[in-house]
């Protein structure tokens, strides 16, 4: 197994401290603290309904937290809606692909951040040209720039979402089961992309149910159970069974990071 090469001596890229969110009586996220360093992939694991998506949505501004602080580069960040998160260069690739089915790839890629002409009208031609450039790098075979994304395959749709994050220079990337809807080949493509983004110093939170994939892609893993943090471990120092034990039994292994 590869050794842990992440330098964690400086300030983390993002730190979420003591995050809490309740829906009615349910404590979906209950006092969770996680962080990620530049160039690091942190897996967020847990059983269904553990609170992974809610935790990440508080970072992306889609859900407003009840309490807790978010620090970006050591500074307190005020994130209350998706626009705030975008300002901190936090981009999200959602579990259920968040694309408008009736629009084409470039309209989706630029949604909310359209390029405009000097008159203030949307510049579709320029956006399409930019989309061709960026998508051409990620999926060279992609041709269907004119069709609504409803007509694209799961992998093609996911590349639109990933291209969006790459195009807008994400510093922090949240991926909520990015390969859940994908085939083998497309999953491999996403894995390669994660490696590539790591090299550029981007910090990534990756939610994934595939322990094997977590071992292969992540540096550390934070495990949640019933809204609480079981613990954070260095994936190179634990076995798959250790991880499963944390997820299912909420039991921290002897040798923790």
């Amino acid at each position: 197994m590869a050794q842990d090469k992440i330098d964690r001596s400086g300030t983390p890229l993002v730190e979420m401290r003591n995050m809490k969110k309740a829906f009615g009586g349910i404590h979906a996220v209950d006092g969770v603290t996680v962080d990620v360093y530049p160039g690091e992939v942190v897996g967020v694991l847990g059983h269904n309904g553990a609170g992974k998506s809610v935790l990440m949505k508080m970072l992306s501004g889609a859900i407003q937290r009840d309490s807790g602080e978010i620090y970006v580069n050591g500074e307190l960040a005020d994130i209350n809606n998706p626009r705030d998160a975008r300002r901190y260069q936090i981009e999200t690739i959602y579990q259920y692909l968040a694309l408008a089915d009736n629009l084409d790839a470039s309209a989706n890629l630029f949604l909310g951040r359209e390029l405009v002409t000097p008159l203030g009208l949307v510049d579709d031609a320029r956006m399409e040209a930019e989309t061709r450039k960026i998508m051409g790098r990620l999926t060279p075979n992609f041709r269907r720039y004119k069709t609504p994304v409803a007509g694209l395959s799961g992998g093609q749709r996911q590349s639109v979402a990933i291209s969006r994050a790459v195009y807008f220079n994400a510093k922090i990337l949240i991926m909520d089961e990015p390969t859940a809807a994908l085939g083998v080949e497309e999953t491999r493509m996403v894995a390669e992309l994660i490696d590539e983004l790591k090299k550029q110093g981007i910090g990534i939170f990756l939610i994934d149910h595939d322990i094997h994939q977590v071992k292969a892609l992540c540096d550390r893993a934070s495990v949640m159970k019933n809204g609480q943090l079981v613990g954070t471990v260095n994936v190179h120092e634990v076995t798959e069974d250790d991880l499963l034990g944390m997820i299912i039994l909420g039991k921290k292994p002897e040798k923790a990071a």
Partner: protein
Amino acid sequence: MSDATQSHTPPKQASRNFFQALEIDTRLLGMIGAFIVLCLVFHVWTDGRFLTPRNVFNLTIQTVSVAIMATGMVFVIVTRHIDLSVGALLATCSAMMAMTQTVVTPEWFGLGLNHPLTAPIAVIVGIVTGVVIGAFHGWLIGYLLIPAFIVTLGGLLVWRNVAWHLTKGQTIGPLDSTFQTFGGINGTMGETGSWIFGILATGLAIALLLSARRNKIRHEFPVKPLWAEFVLAGMVAAAILGLVAVLNAYEIPERRLVRMFEARGEVMPEGFTAGYGVPYSVLILVVIATIMTVVAQRTRLGRYIFATGGNPDAAMLSGINTRLLTVKVFAIMGALCAISAVVASARLTFHSNDIGTLDELRVIAAAVIGGTALAGGLGTIYGAILGALIMQSLQSGMAMVGVEAPYQNIVVGIVLVLAVFIDIIYRKRTGA
């Protein structure tokens, strides 16, 4: 409403390639085709009375009011809402404007009757009324999360009767003479004015085609063959100038001409004739259709309207304020109801209690026949206008043939359901 049959015979294939090269959406072609067939059938059936300048003129001015509101209904339905209150809102706006020009400006402001400022003041009052009420609906729907169906069903009852209250149930008229020029027959551009308008409109349309082509070339995207551009430009020019020619051919009756000369203190020369030309109400529709199309296709607002209709969550996660967007959409709808109220009351030359009754259904039907999907995210402005035109032609055609009103409604109802059914089949086949 077209039905692209799966035929592989060579001649059919060739014609399909022809239309493919033009890159016009086949749905639009289908609708135009259906409209032309409809007109020809009625023309034959009425022994040549349907496609006369006089009837075309009447058809256009009858369509304007519903068509204006239908363009706004496209935005409402695209964002997955509905507005059942447009006819009632039209009545309230009309009542406000009627009271403004018959009571407020002549008596309270002491401007007297037919003062040049009366019409502009009345129109502004109407539009402000429409925007405020529309925005209020939008706020109830977007911020308080009350379903649009309920809010506007309530609005239907409230505004219809607010209009009644404002006028104490009376018919208010005659309206200001300047105001009446927005109604159709009482305000046309004349033959020369209409030709100038037609040529300007054609020039603008061709300039747009050209700039779109240049833009594509600049970004090295494929463009359609040059001959296809020429055919398209030719068809657009023929449609615009053809309509102008027909409207110009509708001659003003001699009695009326004599009166017009008398009003100017002149005597009409012997054998003088003049055509009506394009009504100002049609000009208003053309301007609104252009603005609404630009908003839909070329502005962020339009992009967000369609994105929200396609996937509200995606729109919200992309940082779009979907609540405020709802307020904007209904405010636009309100403004358009007010403009329709100007056209509708000016055409009648008075405000009546039942003005706009059942318009909500005509407007929704026009948008839906025009290809706006109730599931949201899909719809075009030109489709809605064509939908309004098809409905109006159907209705007046049947009236000319002598079909009684109840039977007309039965046919219109069946056509509405059938049109949507054909659309569903069409969308399934093309996967659009």
